[in-house]
């Protein structure tokens, strides 16, 4: 990519508009820079991208398949379309699937009003879920002195897993089980409160987009997140301050 030690600059089209970008940027980065809205849930600036929620899928001219904006880097001459009826339909359907998967009861959730899932469903015009609710039985892990994990509200974005591994360096979190049985676990599936590797930093709580992770003692609609620390931290690291 580098030309004479410099990163190449490319020009491309987003929704018909010409934009320029560094060749190592992702479609998502370029779109956000240009104030083009693309919904995301697993992505968080400062963490690695995994392309798991599939909400950021976009159309690229000449490509039969839809591409995830968060993990696809831009190319010279790329023509990207971020909003079509088809994409809107898929995105709504994916959100409906998330809502149907576990027990999301916004009205009594700690994150009511601060929830990215709730925000996105409103933004994309979802007023009811057509996919049947599955109503699985999940427990709540309240063994940690400061934090609570409620699997009923988890959307498996794995931001907690990544922030703990990539930023805090503790790797308390991981995923256990396959498919619809998958869930986040602490240490080797031990109660969070007994996790010796947990530094109690609370980064996982603050990056959780929903109400699955919350500060203990918070009541309905009190779980305001403070994820601002992440870009700040990553920038400081990059600049080695």
């Amino acid at each position, binding site marked *: 990519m580098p030309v004479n030690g410099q990163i190449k600059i490319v020009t491309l089209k987003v929704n018909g508009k010409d934009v320029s970008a560094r060749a190592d940027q992702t479609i998502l980065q370029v779109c956000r820079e240009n104030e083009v809205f693309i919904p995301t849930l697993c992505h968080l600036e400062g963490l690695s991208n995994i392309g798991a929620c599939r909400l950021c899928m976009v159309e690229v001219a000449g490509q039969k398949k839809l591409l995830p904006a968060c993990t696809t880097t831009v190319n010279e001459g790329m023509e990207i379309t971020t909003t079509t009826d088809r994409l809107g339909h898929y995105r709504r359907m994916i959100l409906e699937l998330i809502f149907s998967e576990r027990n999301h*009861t916004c009205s*009594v959730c700690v994150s009511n009003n601060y929830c990215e899932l709730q925000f996105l469903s409103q933004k994309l015009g979802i*007023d009811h*879920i057509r996919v049947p609710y599955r109503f699985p039985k999940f427990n709540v892990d309240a063994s940690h002195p400061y934090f609570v994990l409620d699997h009923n509200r988890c959307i498996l974005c794995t931001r907690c897993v990544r922030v703990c591994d990539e930023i805090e360096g503790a790797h308390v979190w991981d995923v256990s089980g396959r498919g619809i049985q998958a869930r986040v676990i602490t240490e080797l599936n031990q109660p969070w409160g007994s996790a010796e590797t947990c530094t109690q930093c609370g980064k996982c709580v603050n990056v959780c987009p929903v109400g699955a992770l919350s500060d203990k003692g918070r009541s309905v609609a009190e779980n305001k997140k403070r994820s601002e620390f992440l870009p700040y931290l990553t920038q400081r690291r990059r600049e080695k301050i």
Partner: protein
Amino acid sequence: MKAKIATTWLDGCSGCHMSFLDMDERILAIADRIELVYSPLVDFKTFPDQVDVTIVEGAVASVDDLNKIKKIRKHTRFLVALGDCAINANVPSMRNPIPVEQIINRAYVENAVIHDELPKHPALPDLLARVMPVHEVVKVDVFIPGCPPSNDTIFYAVAELLDGRIPDLTDKTRFGA
């Protein structure tokens, strides 16, 4: 001719009806244009044959709810699901991961201090195995999410319906609002 409006209340807390009443004096403007033919707010005992708009609050949780909503759908031109319980079964559905017998037993026997026995009376409807949103049982035409939806939202939605438009509520309300 005035539009025939009905409201009903399945498994919910009546908060949506309260919010409806919270529109205060604006209710007079609506009252001029509608005829309230069936509602917990008035005293009609039977559901009329033909209703233009029925507003439903609450989820479908019992056999009684199920029969009621099916009958209402048959006699309603436009069915509105009002509030989260009607739309996503909300708090009533939190019992869904647990078997019904276990819940009843917990409520009436295990936790009872006196008269620890299961309620048995022909007038008491059986609970369904799981609480369902209204649209899983019958077709719903308009959804007004919120817990409860604000009085402004309800007023806007009803006014739009009376003007013959489907209300666009995207920026007005959401689940849990």
